[in-house]
Each structure stands twice: as structure tokens, then as C-alpha cells.
């Protein structure tokens, strides 16, 4: 039987913020667009984003300009970001956010009726446009409505398992319907990957089942390069109790609104962990921090400096990890995060979904007592290497945007900079892919051998009869990654992890699942496991290569940042012809003198 086939100009894989924004832009440029997602439309990770979208609109503090946003992003990323991406991001984010309002979004307001902006870790001004703590929902719904009303074809609950390539680069993609198991083919002149992150490589994560690094692995298989894969963000505040919600995110907005971190002895420990060179950016006393919170809660600025809890995520995560490790943790192995000293109705209004989340899932009333929190795997800075202007990868016609693309955030992402990244580079990549499709004279030739191989790989675990259970393999991988490739890394552990990954990979051909093709999660997991093994290996090998500590990557055996040895290079991962993984470095893209000047003393 011939495979169901949908030819398009631009195929967008992923319907989070990045994929939706890319699809809208490509369609507006005249391309015929297909949009594919593993879940239902509107359920991508973007829907879970809470705190806000960063854009230097200057509504709360007129001193905020793109230049300051650029500087904060680069400093947060420990200067390993692609400077051109950080520049475009800072310059274009305000327009992209305003555009959402034009499409129906309704952000919280300042007293003079404009879009309100809240403070966040690492941002030197109140910068995050938000809707309470459900900003991602507002964003995805707005983009979803825009995409649907502009007539884009959406293929939901459909998984892409292969990017098909030919002599002229990309030729399309192969996948299957999760609801029926039937294969489907999308011949395309350009493919945009917008598949999000990799959190399911770890046990404790804020990410859902979807985050199995599909886009990273699809690109890698197609011959594209990945960069910065050693940089995985462990968010400092995930829930630690009860067990079923361990890892679930507690938004940074809690700290943005004034939340205080304490250990079991009641000590406000973040004072101890502020990096010396940035200490002057933070309050000196509890009293000063309190004044800052009072002003911030009214949407005003004051001469007080920000509380120590608003240090960058990598730093706060290490601090919490250290407190717990040294025996000052809470009964459930976290630390306390307290916002209950503020008026209850204010907390409920600014953090409604956090209030519900703790009340309903942990029996904790956050207006009356502290939360218990600890680090959780949250975001991957590393991703598909792309051109800053167009989002094109190192394979012709293959594009990437959003969390699965690399370069924008360097060694550590600032909160709020992902949602803005999705908008800015989603739009640019959509335009880039549409232009590429338009410029292509040839009709993409879909190699039937690649299609039949993909079909066979897909069917194999169903036909094997007896074999290993994929869930067991996934649990082993996750436990191993958390133990050996977590917040603090060391040579011996990383070597061991590489061995473990090879052993797990050798078991892939024995995976067998029961049941049929219709909505069978065990079967779906087999493809995802393959991808998780690829990204786990890429993370581990890149972490082993970088013999220094920088941003989210902390080596116990190399605790210092080595500016001379590593400050000017990104790690790169690519596939060798024999299928093995090659790890190398590449020089950081050059920074113009103008941009360098903006960094002042930071470089």
C-alpha cells in the first residue's frame, strides 16, 4: 500500500512557540506549510512556561534598552553565546512581543496601561512581560489561534522519525501517526526542527515525555552539527515532594516576586554564594532586599539592589546542591523557599498556578508556609548549530529554532530568554526556510531506500516477539545520567558514563513491545530511547572534553573557568561516516567591536 503522502514547501516539526512562530512566518512568505507535532496542538512545553518572556521594552524601567539585554544575556551565558544571535534576540524581542498583542494576547498591565514587566534572575532591569504565572499558555494559545486562522495544515499526534536527505540536502521527512500507527511521508523543500529539549535523559526533570531530544538526534543523523552539548541547565527550584511530582518546576517568578531561600537552620544561605565580582549588583542586607521587593511588587523601581536569590540559575542550583550535600537540607532533601511573608492575596494574584500546584499536589499553602525545593533538569543550552540570520543548520535545507537549536544562550540561559528566543528565531527561521524553498528549482527527490529503512526500523520492536522492556532501559539511562553526568562532573564519572551508554545502546536491538500500533506508548518509547542515547552521549562526551567549569557545566576536577584555554571555543559534535560520534571544538563566532564595547568590563 502506498504511504500517505503530504508534499509541502516547508515542513515544521514541532508546534511549541518556535515551531508555531516559524510556521506563521513561512506561510506569510507564501510557502505551503505543514506543521507536525507529537502531542495535541497547544500542549507543547511552551504551554508550561510560567514566569515570562524577556524583552527590553522599558515599560517599568525606561533605562532598559536592547544593549542592556544583550549584555545580561552574554554575561549570563559566560560569553560563550553566539554574539550575533544574542544581539538579534535583544533587538527584535520587543517587536515580537508587541506582535503577540496584535494577535490577541492579553498581558498583565502597568499602572499606565502598558505591558507589565517583572524582574528575573540575571536581568538587570524588570524585563519579563507576563500573564501571572501562565505566560506560556498565553503565548501558545495566541500563536495557535494565529496559525489556525491563517490556514496552516496541522498534523497532530504525529511523530517524525527521520529527516530524508539527498544530493541537494533535505528532501522531506518520514513519520507515523501516534493515533493509528500508520506511516506518513512529507516531501519538503525545507524542514524546520523545533522539537524542544532533552530532559527525559534524567530522572528528576521539569520536562515531559516529549523531551527526548528528537530534533537533536534527527539533525545529527542527517549529518548536521550540534554545539555546546555539555551545557544542561539544572533549574534551582523543582518540587522535591511528594515523589510523584519530584522535579516539577517551581517558577523563578517566586523569587522574582520576593521568595527567600533558607536551609533547615533558617539561614538565608544565598548571601554566601554570590560571586565576588558581582556582589555589588545585589543587596547588602535583608533590609535592602526587602525594600527592593516592596518596590517591585508595586511595579516600581527603587535604589535598593536585588535580593541574592536572583543570582543566575547555575549559581543558585550549585548553592542548593551544596547546602543539601553538607547536611543542611530539609527532611525531603531540598531547601525552603518562602514567599508567605507577603500578603496572601498578592501571592495568589501574582502566582496563582504555583498556589494551586502546591495546594493540590503537596498539601502546602504557600501563603502560609514555605515550599521545599531542589534542583531539576530543565533546559538544554546545547543544540543544532545554526546560522544566526536564517536558522539554517550545517545541512542545506535543514533549519532549527527554539530549544533544539544551539548558540543563543551560551553556557547558561537566563530565565525568560527562551520564550523570546522562540519568537525571534522562530520568525527568522520560518522566513529563512520559506526563502530556501522558494529558491529551490528541483522537486525534492525522496529516496525510497531511506523510507523503507525507516519503516522497517519502526516496525521491528513490534515484530520481535520476546525481548527487553523499553521502560526498564529508560529508567536505567535516567538514573545513570543523574548519577554520573549531573550538576557536578568529574573525569572518572564521565568515562564511566560513556561505557554505560555504549552498553545500553547495545541493548536497543533487543527491545520488544507488546500490543499493536494504535496509541502504544511502549512502542513510541523505543524511538525516543534511541534519541535519548544519542543526546546523552553528546552531553557526556562534550562534558568530558571541556576541562574547565563555566556556567551550567561544573567540573570538580577543573573548578576554575579557564578563559585562555576555553573562553573562545564551543564544543561541536558530529556523526562520523562509520556512525560513531566525533567531538571537537570550533572557534566562537567573532564579535564586532561595537558589541564588545557593550560588554564593558565583562569580557
Amino acid at each position, binding site marked *: 500500500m502506498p504511504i500517505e503522502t503530504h508534499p509541502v514547501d516547508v515542513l515544521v516539526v514541532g508546534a511549541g512557540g518556535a515551531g508555531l512562530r516559524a510556521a506563521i512566518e513561512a506561510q506569510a512568505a507564501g510557502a505551503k506549510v505543514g506543521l507536525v507535532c507529537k*502531542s*495535541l*496542538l*497547544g*500542549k*507543547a*512545553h511552551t*504551554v*508550561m512556561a510560567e514566569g515570562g518572556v524577556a524583552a527590553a521594552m522599558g515599560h517599568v524601567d525606561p533605562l532598559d534598552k536592547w544593549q542592556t539585554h544583550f549584555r545580561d544575556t552574554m554575561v549570563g551565558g559566560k560569553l560563550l553565546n553566539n554574539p550575533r544571535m544574542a544581539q538579534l534576540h535583544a533587538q527584535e524581542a520587543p517587536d515580537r512581543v*508587541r506582535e503577540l*498583542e*496584535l*494577535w*490577541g494576547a*492579553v498581558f*498583565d*498591565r502597568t499602572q*499606565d*496601561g502598558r505591558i507589565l514587566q517583572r524582574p528575573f534572575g540575571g536581568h538587570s532591569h524588570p524585563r519579563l512581560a507576563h*500573564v*501571572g504565572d*501562565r505566560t506560556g*499558555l498565553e503565548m501558545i494559545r495566541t500563536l495557535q*489561534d*494565529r496559525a*489556525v*486562522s491563517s490556514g496552516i495544515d*496541522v498534523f*497532530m499526534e504525529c511523530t517524525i522519525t527521520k529527516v530524508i536527505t539527498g544530493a541537494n540536502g533535505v528532501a522531506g521527512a518520514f513519520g507515523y501517526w501516534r*493515533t493509528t500507527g500508520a506511516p506518513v511521508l512529507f516531501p519538503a523543500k525545507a524542514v524546520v526542527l523545533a522539537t524542544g529539549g532533552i530532559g527525559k535523559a534524567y530522572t528528576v526533570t521539569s520536562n*515531559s*515525555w*516529549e523531551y527526548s531530544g528528537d530534533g537533536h538526534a534527527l539533525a545529527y543523523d542527517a549529518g548536521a552539527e550540534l554545539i555546546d552539548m555539555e551545557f544542561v541547565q539544572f533549574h534551582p527550584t523543582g518540587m522535591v*515532594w*511528594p*515523589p*510523584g*511530582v519530584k522535579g*516539577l*518546576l517551581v517558577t523563578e517568578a517566586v523569587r522574582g516576586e520576593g521568595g527567600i531561600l533558607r536551609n533547615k537552620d533558617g539561614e538565608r544561605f544565598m548571601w554566601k554564594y554570590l560571586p565576588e565580582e558581582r556582589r555589588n549588583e545585589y543587596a547588602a542586607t535583608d533590609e535592602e532586599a526587602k525594600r527592593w521587593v516592596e518596590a517591585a511588587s508595586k511595579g516600581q523601581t527603587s535604589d535598593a539592589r536585588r535580593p541574592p536569590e536572583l543570582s543566575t540559575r547555575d549559581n543558585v542550583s550549585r548553592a542548593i546542591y551544596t547546602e543539601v550535600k553538607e547536611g543542611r537540607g530539609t527532611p525531603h532533601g531540598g531547601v525552603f523557599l518562602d514567599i508567605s511573608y507577603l500578603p496572601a492575596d498578592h501571592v495568589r494574584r501574582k502566582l496563582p*498556578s504555583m498556589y*494551586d*500546584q502546591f495546594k*493540590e*499536589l*503537596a498539601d502546602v499553602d504557600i501563603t502560609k508556609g514555605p515550599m521545599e525545593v531542589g534542583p531539576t533538569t530543565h533546559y538544554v543550552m546545547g543544540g543544532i548549530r545554526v546560522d544566526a540570520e536564517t536558522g539554517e543548520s550545517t545541512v542545506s535545507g535543514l533549519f532549527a529554532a527554539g530549544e533544539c537549536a544551539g548558540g543563543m544562550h551560551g553556557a547558561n540561559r537566563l530565565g525568560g530568554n527562551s520564550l523570546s528566543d522562540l519568537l525571534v528565531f522562530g520568525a527568522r527561521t520560518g522566513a529563512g526556510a520559506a526563502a530556501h524553498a522558494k529558491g529551490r528549482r528541483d522537486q525534492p527527490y525522496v529516496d525510497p531506500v531511506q523510507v523503507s529503512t525507516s519503516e522497517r526500523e519502526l516496525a521491528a520492536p513490534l515484530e520481535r516477539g520476546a525481548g527487553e522492556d*523499553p*521502560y*526498564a532501559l529508560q*529508567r536505567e539511562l535516567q538514573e545513570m545520567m543523574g548519577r554520573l553526568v549531573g550538576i557536578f562532573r568529574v573525569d572518572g564519572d564521565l568515562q564511566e558514563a560513556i561505557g554505560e551508554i555504549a552498553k545500553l545502546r547495545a541493548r536497543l536491538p533487543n527491545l520488544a*513491545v*507488546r*500490543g*499493536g500500533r*494504535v*496509541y*502504544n*506508548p*511502549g*512502542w513510541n518509547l523505543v524511538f525516543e530511547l534511541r534519541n535519548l542515547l544519542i543526546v546523552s552521549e553528546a552531553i557526556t562526551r562534550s562534558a568530558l572534553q571541556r576541562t574547565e567549569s563555566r556556567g551550567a557545566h561544573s567540573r570538580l576536577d577543573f573548578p576554575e573557568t579557564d578563559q585562555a584555554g576555553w573562553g573562545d571555543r564551543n564544543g561541536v559534535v558530529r556523526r562520523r561516516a562509520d556512525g560513531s560520534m566525533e567531538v571537537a571544538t570550533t572557534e566562537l563566532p567573532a564579535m564586532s567591536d561595537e558589541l564588545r564595547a557593550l560588554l564593558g568590563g565583562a569580557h
Partner: protein
Amino acid sequence: MTEAHIAHLKVFRGEPGGATRYDEFDVPVEEGMVILDALHWIQGNAAPDLAVRWNCKAAKCGSCSGEVNGKPRLMCKTRISDLDLDEPITVEPMRSFPLVRDLVSDVSWNYEVNKSIQAFTPPAGLPQEEWRWQQQDIERVQEYRKCIECFLCQDVCHVLRNHETEKPFMGPRFLVRTAGLEMHPIDEGDRRGYLKDTGNIGYCNITKCCTEVCPEHIKITDNAIIPLKERVADEFYDPIQWAWRKLRGKPAAGAAGTPLPMLQGGSASDAPAAAKGDKPTSEG
């Protein structure tokens, strides 16, 4: 492990066309466990092919809707400790929609309805720098926009659940969406004709069952449906408006457009009776 720490789950299984059944599982209960945790335990230990839809596990995405002991619930938000463990816990898919498999229902009809609603329509001439809204002016619209599209309200609404109406009914979720557009401070669209003749708002008899199940606590009936019904009534049934239109020869506001598809029969119609929770949850 003592008896008190085991939950007995009766889980709906099967595909359309084939025989459906209830499989029983004994699941060890952990502190704070929710129904979705129990289903994941079953997938990982007893039935790897058990179909269940979920994403966020934090009541934010609206994927994991189902019926627990006959009540429409988000399964990631239903605490096992709140249920009576002496009785089996029945877990079923949303019964108003067609079945895909096991606990997964086909909700695609909702996406078709959504497409038919006129999108946000801002005024052409007003520069965006001049859009100034006070927080209190948008609070109501923000309430509608909290919707996570779990479709539990659609599932519980007897108009949709009974599949007996002559014309299609858009359902509470899309009345909420329309209210969010109609009451947006600067939207210029007019969806009253659509509400009356395409969405058939008249079928709603204000039973408030939808409001009761909404996990986002949106006051669907009081804050969205009733104000929309009033707008439609003012436009179409107010004698002064009617006479005025006649006089000026103006058409009724907000043209109706193409009809919606009908919602096809749900899994409720061809499922075997469960020990418990088989009764439609609410009729009144």
C-alpha cells in the same frame, strides 16, 4: 506492604470496533500519588501498552482528561488519597468523544469547532502604542484565557454527551473562547450571529455542570455564557433593535458562516457497564 497501601484500579481498555473491557491492577500507593502516577506505574510494571495521554503532569496542559469514578477529572490532579481505597477506582476515557484506545479519546472535533470562530479583530486605525488597558479592564478576559483546553466541560455538558440535538452545539469551551474575544477591550469582531445560528448557544440551558468540572475554576456559565446569551438576546430578540434593523435594511450582526460538524458518538455509547461510575455524571 499492608492492604491500606494498595489501590485497586479498574481501567477501561480497548479500541473502537473491538471488544472493550476493564483490566484490574493493584498499584502500590506512594505518598501524594495521583491517578496519572498510578497509570504510569501500570505502564512501567504491568501493561506497557496502556494508552493514556499526558504532558505536563502539573495541571497546565489539559492533556490527561478522563473520568475517575465517573467524574470528569484531570488525572494528574486527582489525588489517590482523596478517594475511597476500599472500593476499586474506575478510570475511563472522556465518554462524550469517540474512542481512540484505552484512556485516549478523539478530541479532534473540538479543533474543528475552534477553527470556525472569527479570530481576534483589532481596529485597523489605532496605533499599537496607544493601546492602554487598565488591569481591572482585562481581568475578565484573562479569566477566559486561563482555559487549558482540557475539554472536560465539553465532556460533561449533557447537550454534547447525549448526542441528541438536531443541530451541532459548540459547547462551553468555545463559548468561553468567544467570550474572551467579544469582551476584549479593543476587538471589533461581532460573533453574535455566529453564536446564535452556528454555535447554537440556545441549546445551553444553564445547568452549570461545566463550571463545576473546570480545573481552572473559570466561572463558565455565569461569566461567559450568560453574558453572551444576553448579547445575543439584545441583538436578535430586542424589539427595538429588530425594528431599527428593518428600518435601515441592515443584516443581523456577525454572519453565521458554514455549519459546524456534528460531534460523533462517544465511547459512552458502546462501552460495557463498569462496576461503578457508568452513569452519566450530570444531567442537571
